[in-house]
């Protein structure tokens, strides 16, 4: 590869549509206040996931003892322990900060699996059509018939209650909605004349799928990525609460489960409420952020015009 080819590649990747879409999209989104709040909260959770363990005031796995050497059981919030302690003497604040990491990681991995499978199947089925479409969509219908919680419980009980395996199981099922929706959008796009023009210049089917179809379903894919992240976090927390997930990965779902198991959800509100609130807010914010993004990106106007 010559120097000019490399330079060409760099410059073409710099004005790649994904990069442009993201940059422009984020810039535009930050102009509406609600989106700013959603994005801000999501960044906050992401930062907690990255740095939570380092800013936690106590070791999340350490049972704390008072001055007299007795366990600090179910201490209400105080200056030393802003969110109190659990019935076993763990600092709730520290556990909440550490718990952001598995929660965020679960969401990102699950969302990535969902959108990768969903977009691949949706675009292939929609654009190629014919028997390929039939096979892929009947397979999607089949996956639609799977009750996710029950399958996940069965699989996890048989193959070990790992944290990551739970996320993968969720991802391997939840792509179904995005595949259907993306396919239906591809069906519309492929009838537009710019796709015909691409075919007329001799572009191959895979090339058109990557260069023309994918960029035009990207806004919807981002929406489904957001929905996937939210869905994965919710279901993963649900599985954790039921108790089929590795209890030693301290996600927020596990925290709620522990509080529930101790029978202290009601009385020790400082223990049960914070993880619940964080979970709900994270999921709501991902959903809403995806919606806002889709609203802007799929509108007929471009980013440049909304500016």
């Amino acid at each position: 590869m010559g120097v000019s080819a490399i330079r060409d590649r760099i410059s073409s990747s710099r004005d790649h549509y994904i990069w442009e879409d993201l940059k422009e999209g984020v810039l535009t989104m930050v102009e509406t206040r609600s989106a700013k709040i959603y994005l801000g909260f999501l960044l906050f959770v992401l930062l907690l996931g990255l740095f939570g363990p380092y800013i936690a005031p106590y070791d999340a796995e350490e049972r704390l003892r008072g001055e007299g050497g007795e366990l600090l059981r179910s201490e209400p919030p105080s200056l030393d322990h802003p969110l109190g302690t659990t019935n076993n003497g763990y600092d709730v604040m520290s556990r909440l900060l550490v718990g952001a990491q598995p929660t965020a990681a679960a969401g990102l991995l699950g969302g990535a699996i969902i959108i990768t499978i969903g977009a691949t199947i949706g675009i292939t089925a929609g654009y190629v059509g014919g028997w390929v479409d039939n096979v892929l969509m009947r397979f999607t219908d089949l996956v639609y018939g799977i009750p996710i919680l029950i399958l996940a419980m069965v699989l996890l009980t048989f193959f070990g209650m790992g944290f990551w395996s739970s996320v993968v199981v969720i991802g391997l099922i939840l792509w179904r909605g995005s595949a259907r929706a993306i396919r239906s959008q591809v069906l519309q796009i492929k009838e537009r004349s710019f796709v015909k023009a691409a075919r007329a210049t001799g572009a191959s089917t895979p090339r058109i799928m990557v260069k023309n179809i994918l960029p035009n379903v990207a806004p919807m894919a981002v929406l489904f990525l957001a929905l996937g992240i939210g869905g994965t976090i919710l279901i993963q927390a649900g599985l954790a609460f039921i108790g089929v997930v590795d209890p030693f990965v301290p996600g927020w779902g596990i925290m709620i489960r522990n509080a529930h198991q101790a029978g202290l959800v009601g009385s020790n509100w400082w223990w049960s409420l914070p993880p619940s609130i964080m979970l709900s807010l994270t999921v709501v914010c991902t959903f809403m952020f995806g919606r806002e993004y889709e609203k802007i990106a799929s509108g007929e106007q471009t980013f440049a015009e909304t500016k």
Partner: protein
Amino acid sequence: MTDELLLQVENLEKYYAQKRSLKEIALRKEKDPVQAVDDVSMEVHSNQSIGVIGESGCGKTTLLEVLMGLEPLTGGDVIYRGTRMSEFDREDWLKYRRNVQIIFQDPFDSLDPKQRVRTVLYEPLRVHGIEDKEQRAREMLERVNLGPPEQFLSKYPPQLSGGEKQRVAIARALILQPDVVLADEPVSMLDVSTQAAVLKLLSHLTDEMGVSLIYISHDLSTVSYVCDSVNVMYLGRLVEGAPTERLINEPQHPYTQALINSIPIPDPYHERETIELEGAPREPIGLGEGCRFRDRCPERMDICEKTPLDTEISEHHQTACHLYYDHEDESTQVSTGGESQPRESVPADGDDQ
């Protein structure tokens, strides 16, 4: 330049099978296909611009899509420089796609909203592995009067006006230096003021670059501006073809006469005889034998139940109408003048001549 036969359309036929309901499949009931394009023949030589006109739904666009290879043909053939489309292999297709390009009707739809003008113009070059993309793109933009090129290369289509978009589409079609460009009503979506400029550009560029043009439209005025010769299409068939001048001044087929007659003249006091056609074209389904125009034709005769042959009236002027050929030496003559059974759908009595 030499006069070379580039594209030869031979009895081209495109039928679409109609969807059958479950009941019809169960009862093994066949449905007549939609006869979008039927028995169309024409030739495209180098440096020629040919128009095809006809009203909406007559199969113009289908003809174009079949020519472009976007829809498979169901009969007849297209021959490009001696190779038959029905026998094209991968390489032939790539060569064909490099040399035959298309300009679509709707510039708002024919440019990918997610691709910058640069990418739009680079894509054909990338597909065909042509280097010096940057230079070609700039040159092409200047040729379609979008200058300075830097200003347009990094724009997205939604940032361009309708006329600018169509210029980009023209640039995309011409950037591979094709032999033939197919244009599907390229100005019908533009403002009248922009139409003239884009038309002028298109006609100028095809002349300059030695590209042949097949121009499809329902609008005779734009066709006559661009094209050397014009074919008239009615319900999937070509009914008349002649050099533009001749067709306008001496239309022969009754449909062409009505068409020419319907061109508005911007003079409210102008007196002229108008030929008004009654009804609308039929559905192109189950057309069967006979002239396609017979149920609306003011000159209808009994013999119109037979499909008229293409006759050469004078040089380069053909029409498919029973009025214009000698039936004595043809076997097409109806055996007994008045007694041929008229079809129920057709009024039994026409204006015999």
